[in-house]
């Protein structure tokens, strides 16, 4: 196989095989619409990838096998190791990193293409040059933006918004500068200037850093989704540059997926994408933080909570990111199991931004063996709320705050929430009355049918489970 390559680049056979590959991607994604078929869908997509890679290795002109082997060996082992080791709470970081390396790969490929164009000599056709420039720009922005997102999620840098003075202006100048440089390269493309191209990569890199740095922790689900969309676009651009149909289709699929997720996340926070990118609210200097006024709350212990839960018919658990931080998902599952043994119906109400990336909470609960049938989406559970005897809020805050519905002046006004206050009784497990990401008081805590259980989520859930068993 190594001796003589058999396929002509851009030839019929290669293109046909690439069509097979992207068809398998689409089929794989289609199977991803249900938990029972998704695993098979992932296999189908992986098979498509195998077809695409083998086809490319068989292309005429393939060479430098030693380097290819090194790249494949390093990348595969790093990827395999990371995917086995990663904890489910760390999935957002991992996806951020994958977004990053994907964008980085595209930027490097674009750079190589520019060098190739120079060495071939003569003017590079614009229909190849323009997508190459776009690939370089978007790739570099995604790479650096994703690294910052990763660093924030991993707590390597503060998750609060970090802004430099005049940020918007600097960003605008960088953005315009990148476009001007690209136009200059495109006009004097005989040959294109490598120096200017590297300058583009650098400017885009700074821009990527500056755009993500001011975005706070609560907005991370949007940022990750958006960078996901960006990497997809960059791959599609690289596909145009290399005239490779597999790259165009696969990149576009990824871009569509990232775009859909970005829009869903923004809707779930009742904010526009532009607002998230340019206003750095996800930790704004505590807009209306504690006015100092003390309001009475009802506080209960684990035993009372256990009694309330054990004699209920329908219990809904509302998990938030605090549950993941406390690693409480298994303890919560134990509590639910104890309730189910007594004939209580338990369901879980998942707000779209309950975790730190789209669907994150669902994965955490699935890891703890919660059957996916019990995981209810917000729109599904809200109409059921008045039927619920007890709602248990664990580690969630802003997504349950009735102010989003009732107070038009609240910073989170209009944000869709899980309407726990509609349930007969509410138990909130929380360490203190501190505010959530939005930095505002939660009216829920002070409502007459709410009881606060001040404790660590994991310890409290285990204790309640034990109390229920003893009843």
């Amino acid at each position: 196989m190594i001796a003589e390559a058999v396929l002509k680049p851009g030839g019929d056979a290669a293109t046909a095989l690439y069509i097979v590959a992207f068809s398998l991607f689409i089929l794989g994604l289609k199977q991803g619409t249900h938990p029972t078929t998704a695993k098979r869908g992932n296999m189908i997509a992986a098979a498509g990838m195998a077809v695409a890679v083998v086809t490319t290795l068989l292309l005429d002109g393939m060479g430098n096998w030693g380097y290819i082997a090194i790249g494949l060996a390093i990348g595969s082992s790093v990827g395999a190791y990371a995917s086995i080791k990663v904890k489910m709470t760390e999935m957002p970081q991992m996806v951020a990193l994958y977004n990053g390396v994907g964008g980085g790969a595209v930027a490097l490929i674009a750079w190589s293409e520019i060098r190739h164009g120079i060495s071939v000599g003569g003017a590079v056709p614009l229909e190849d040059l323009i997508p190459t420039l776009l690939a370089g720009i978007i790739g570099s922005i995604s790479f650096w933006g994703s690294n910052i997102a990763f660093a924030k999620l991993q707590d390597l840098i503060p998750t609060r918004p970090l802004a430099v003075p005049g940020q918007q202006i600097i960003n605008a100048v960088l953005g315009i500068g990148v476009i001007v440089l690209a136009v200059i390269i495109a006009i004097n493309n005989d040959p294109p200037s490598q120096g200017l191209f590297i300058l583009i990569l650098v400017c885009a890199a700074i821009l990527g850093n500056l755009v993500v740095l001011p975005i706070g922790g609560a907005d991370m689900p949007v940022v990750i989704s958006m960078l996901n969309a960006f990497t997809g676009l960059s791959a599609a651009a690289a596909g145009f540059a290399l005239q490779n149909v597999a790259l165009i289709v696969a990149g576009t699929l990824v871009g569509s997926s990232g775009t859909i997720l970005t829009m869903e996340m923004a809707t779930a926070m009742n904010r526009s994408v532009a607002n998230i990118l340019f206003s750095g609210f996800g930790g704004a200097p505590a807009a209306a933080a504690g006015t100092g006024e003390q309001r009475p709350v009802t506080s209960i212990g684990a035993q009372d909570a256990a009694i309330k839960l054990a004699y209920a018919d329908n219990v809904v658990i509302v998990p938030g990111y605090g549950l993941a931080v406390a690693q409480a998902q298994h303890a919560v599952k134990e509590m639910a199991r104890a309730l189910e043994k007594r004939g209580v119906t338990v369901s879980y109400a998942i707000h779209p931004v309950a975790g730190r990336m789209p669907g994150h909470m669902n994965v955490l609960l699935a890891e703890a063996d919660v059957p996916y049938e019990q995981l209810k989406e917000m729109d599904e559970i809200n109409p059921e709320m008045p039927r619920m005897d007890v709602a248990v809020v664990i580690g969630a805050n802003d997504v349950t705050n009735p102010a989003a519905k009732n107070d038009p002046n609240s910073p989170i006004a209009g944000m869709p929430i899980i309407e726990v206050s509609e349930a007969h009784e509410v138990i909130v497990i929380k360490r203190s009355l501190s505010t959530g990401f939005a930095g505002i008081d939660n009216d829920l805590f002070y409502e007459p049918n709410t009881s606060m259980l001040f404790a660590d989520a994991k310890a409290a859930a285990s204790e309640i489970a034990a109390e229920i068993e003893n009843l």
Partner: protein
Amino acid sequence: MSLFTEFTIFVLAIFVGFEVISKVPTTLHTPLMSQTNAIHGIVMLGGLIVLGYANDPLEYLIGTIAVAFGAINIVGGFMVTDRMLGMFAKKPKPKADADGKGGSGK
């Protein structure tokens, strides 16, 4: 392939992408993202192609890193997706060691 053919493919792929992805339930959005990370690994093809005509040390380096990055996406993406989807697929069965897997702190 003409630019217009490429554009046709691009536009159709946008519609197919939106059509297919919008049917994925919220529950599966995290695996969806890691799976699209894996599919994004298709850029490794680009790395292989540019490495194919690389002919100086810098180009070898750029190409090798691009291939490695792509391979991380492909292998890591598909494997971690498989791991996650396994959690959704498995039957809820009583087991005592559930706590072992979640890891202990950071």
